């Protein structure tokens, strides 16, 4: 039953005009096609040159459960999630009451006028949208009506805020990959909504968007999973095996999508990469290990439950010393957790994955460019170190669209590590030991199956082995092997991507964080700086840590370790690895399924420092 009350638009004279600096929250039901409308809004704003980000808060469901999409516009280029909503779009009856509460005082609520609305707040402006009527008037094919209904709010927002129609049209064409008919149907709905809004809503005086320059030029809009997939394809990927799991599936699907364009052999027309959907994550990882052992660059992508299943293979790759790459696009755990919400809760699990004494190289990309670069770097490290490398991304980085520099082509040679060819073996007269530390860096030489030399073969096993790969239960052999693996881990410290450090003169407080927290940390630091507190910042890009982390901790009076999990997992690893400075390390950890906000980060630091005084 509709109890919509049409109100005349009222501007709040006391509200300052916000140009390109506010947040829109769109509440819809999952599966209603809002991904299209929200993506089009985001892209149109991006193409107007406005720094934006879009965070999709979606349920683990195909149809019906509530979904929110938060678009933040920030003329100053702050791209973290914002906690406050200025403009609330309500398209979902099940959440409309609480959604209407989200808008800031002085904000705007747009809502589908068929939704049951009981109360109106006095401090916000309401615009009921006759969604059903407008859809009906458009006389669209019946099956499409539900999907284009969301284009109504795109049109109303366009008129209300001043989003350029041409950019909406271009974004639709981009979304439908040039299919003019599909784009046209949607555009028709947008135009009808604009016409209606011109008459009934008008342009808002408080919130406006305006074309701007200086930020988005030359940049692309991309999600981290696509970036990682492209990076892997550009980085020599030969086998990708995977099992569907949110939020990583889109990475494997991107590998599949772009492989024909990027990795079709010109001479034969055949593919130079194989993509295999495995029967489960164990098999996916087994395929990676088998291919890595054979000399191909292989990866799998998964999320928390997947790495749990891969744990045994992780130990085998570590101990039998087989190059392998896992991309873990983190979501909320433990267990099934919140499959569609972001988290950084797998840091511990990834670093120590498997049983016995295991530690792995873990990479933390913070943005799409790093996802792209680590696509190749992970393979280089895995082959140079003959071990498992885990890339820890997360749902926020992996699935949400981010403004990014375009990815740079590199023809730098791949680092394939220490591999003996048949000719090498001939030179050594066949004398070699698979697990012998010839160079003192803990990394031994390997041969690949298929090497045409009768001394090439060795036997690979997860059981105890000596320098020649023969089965051994001798305590000395075991200890010697683990000592070498420790030396290898020291080599890994030197080879892993270095942290990015921003030392601010006069600062006494240091921040250590990682991955997708970056935007929140940077904005948080700006807030703190405004309040008179300058901070230095080390963004960790890999485990194990190197000397630069120790010296950073050394340089500051107090350090805050900021991460999106509940237990402060990175904090605990740092205190273990730097016990002498453990008391300087303070944990700021939050785990609620949302990307960390600048407000949270700055307030936590301020509060902790006040308590310290």
């Amino acid at each position, binding site marked *: 039953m509709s109890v919509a009350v049409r109100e005349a638009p009222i501007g709040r004279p006391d509200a300052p005009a916000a140009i390109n600096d506010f947040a829109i929250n769109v509440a819809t039901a999952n599966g209603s096609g809002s991904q299209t409308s929200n993506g089009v809004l985001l892209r149109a704003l991006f193409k107007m040159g406005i720094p934006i980000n879009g965070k999709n808060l979606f349920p683990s469901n195909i149809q019906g459960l509530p979904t929110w999409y938060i678009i933040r516009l920030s003329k100053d280029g702050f791209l973290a999630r914002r906690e406050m909503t200025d403009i609330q779009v309500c398209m979902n009856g099940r959440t409309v009451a609480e959604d209407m509460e989200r808008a800031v005082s002085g904000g705007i609520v747009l809502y589908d006028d068929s939704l049951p609305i009981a109360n109106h707040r006095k401090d916000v402006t309401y615009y009921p949208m006759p969604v059903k009527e407008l859809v009906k008037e458009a006389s669209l094919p019946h099956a499409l009506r539900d999907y284009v209904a969301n284009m109504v709010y795109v049109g109303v927002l366009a008129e209300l805020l001043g989003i350029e129609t041409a950019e909406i049209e271009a974004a639709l064409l981009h979304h439908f990959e040039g299919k003019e008919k599909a784009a046209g149907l949607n555009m028709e709905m947008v135009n009808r909504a604009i016409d209606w809004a011109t008459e009934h809503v008008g342009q808002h005086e408080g919130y406006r968007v305006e074309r701007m320059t200086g930020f988005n030029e030359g940049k692309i809009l991309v999600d981290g999973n696509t970036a990682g997939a492209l990076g892997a394809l550009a980085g020599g990927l030969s086998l990708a095996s995977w099992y569907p799991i949110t939020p990583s599936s889109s990475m494997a699907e991107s590998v599949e999508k772009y492989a024909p*364009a990027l990795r079709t052999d010109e001479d034969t027309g*055949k*593919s*130079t990469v194989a993509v295999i959907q495995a029967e*489960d994550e164990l098999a996916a990882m087994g395929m990676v290990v088998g291919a890595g052992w054979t000399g191909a660059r292989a990866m799998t992508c998964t999320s928390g439950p997947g790495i749990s299943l891969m744990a045994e293979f992780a130990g*085998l790759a570590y101990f039998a010393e087989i190059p392998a790459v896992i991309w873990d696009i983190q979501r909320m755990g433990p267990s099934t957790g919140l499959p569609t919400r972001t988290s950084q809760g797998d840091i511990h699990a990834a670093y120590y994955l498997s049983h016995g004494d295991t530690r792995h190289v873990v990479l933390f990309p913070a943005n799409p460019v790093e996802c792209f670069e680590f696509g190749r770097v992970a393979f280089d490290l895995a082959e140079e170190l003959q071990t498992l490398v885990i890339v820890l991304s997360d749902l926020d980085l992996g699935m949400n669209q981010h403004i990014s520099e375009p990815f740079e082509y590199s023809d730098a040679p791949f680092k394939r590590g220490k591999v003996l060819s048949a000719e090498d073996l001939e030179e050594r007269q066949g004398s070699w030991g698979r697990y012998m530390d010839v160079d003192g860096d803990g990394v031994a030489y390997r041969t690949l199956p298929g090497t045409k030399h009768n001394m090439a073969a060795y*036997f*690979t096993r*997860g059981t105890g082995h000596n320098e020649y790969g023969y089965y051994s239960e001798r305590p000395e052999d075991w200890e010697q092997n683990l000592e070498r693996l420790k030396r290898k881990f020291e080599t890994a410290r030197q080879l892993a991507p270095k942290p990015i450090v921003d030392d601010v003169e006069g600062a006494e407080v240091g921040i250590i964080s990682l991955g997708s927290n970056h935007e929140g940390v940077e904005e948080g630091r700006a807030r703190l700086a405004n309040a008179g507190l300058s901070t230095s910042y080390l963004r960790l890009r890999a485990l194990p840590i190197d000397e630069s982390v120790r010296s950073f901790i050394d340089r500051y009076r107090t350090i805050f370790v900021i991460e999106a999990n509940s237990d402060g997992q990175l904090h605990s690893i740092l205190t273990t690895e730097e016990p002498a400075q453990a008391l300087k390390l303070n944990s700021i950890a939050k785990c609620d399924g949302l990307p960390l906000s600048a407000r949270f980060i700055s307030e936590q630091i301020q509060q902790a420092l006040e308590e310290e005084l």
Partner: protein
Amino acid sequence: MTTAARNRAARATRRAARPARTNLIGLEKTSYRGRPSTLCKGCGHDSVSQRIVNAAWEMGLDQTQVVKLSGIGCSSKTPAYYLGWSHGFNSLHGRMPSVATGAIVANRSLEVIGVSGDGDSASIGIGQFKHAVRRNLPLIYIVENNGVYGLTKGQFSATADEGQVLKYQGLNDLPPLDICMEALTANATFVARSFAGDPKQLEALLKAAINHRGIAVLDIISPCVTFNNHDTSTKSYGFGRANEIRLHDLNFVPEFEEIEIEEYEDELEVELHDGGTIILKKLDPDHNPKDRTAAYNVIQRSLDEQKLITGLLYISEEEPTFTELLDITETPLAQLPDSKLRPSREALEGVMAGLA
């Protein structure tokens, strides 16, 4: 000198006098050996290892182009005991098929032999086993089936006989899984059952398996002399000898030899995808190994009658393999140069333009 010692000495003298026999690629059989076995004396698995050595030698396999993979268990230790010039991988319990998949896709020119056991394939690894079969991987999948866990000392596996009693475990009251039946239902393209105590048949099957196009599943009853070799066990030497019924006499003729076999009334020749022919002299006139339904019936009959019916139960050379379906380069992916493993600058720029 005792008579036995004299005989041994005489045999040694004869061996030394005889010129060493070499195969197609000029190697003696000893070149196909592995490390000494550490299994129990009399273990069926050692007999299977010897058959692999013989088959590989007689077929003239280049061991550097062979890899041998296994899971975990007594059977999975055996790849160390044959083909010493081949890369070997003793992987994880029940996970050999996935490792083999990765190896095969990474290097499609390798001949891949996977060895597993009944615990490894029918218990912990049944999922990976069936999916490897479903994909028709070009893989020789040997199950050394003894109905019992050896390395952990005598527990029942999923192929143990219903009603069987073991010393420490007591009564097994669950029905067994049948490896051949599971393989068939997963659309296997080569299903054979044999017996570690039937060397001639087993070698012929192994040779055929080497030249089979897709996956070749060999369920080999391979008695565990320590934990499960009493006569009431269908996985014992005694039971096998007393109850083996051969569906046919098998002979594998490689392509480098001419077929010289006298005409036989119920003879069937099957040409293998990778060369050579397997010639079956039917002992059971009703069984045609190209007929899937007949294969089901034979397996069901062996279960109903509690007989060890051996031979090539089913074969088809028609279905494409997994590597063929992937449409990857003929050059093994693992051997492609960097230049083939990265996109051109233009290709990447094209993709970037689409994202702009």
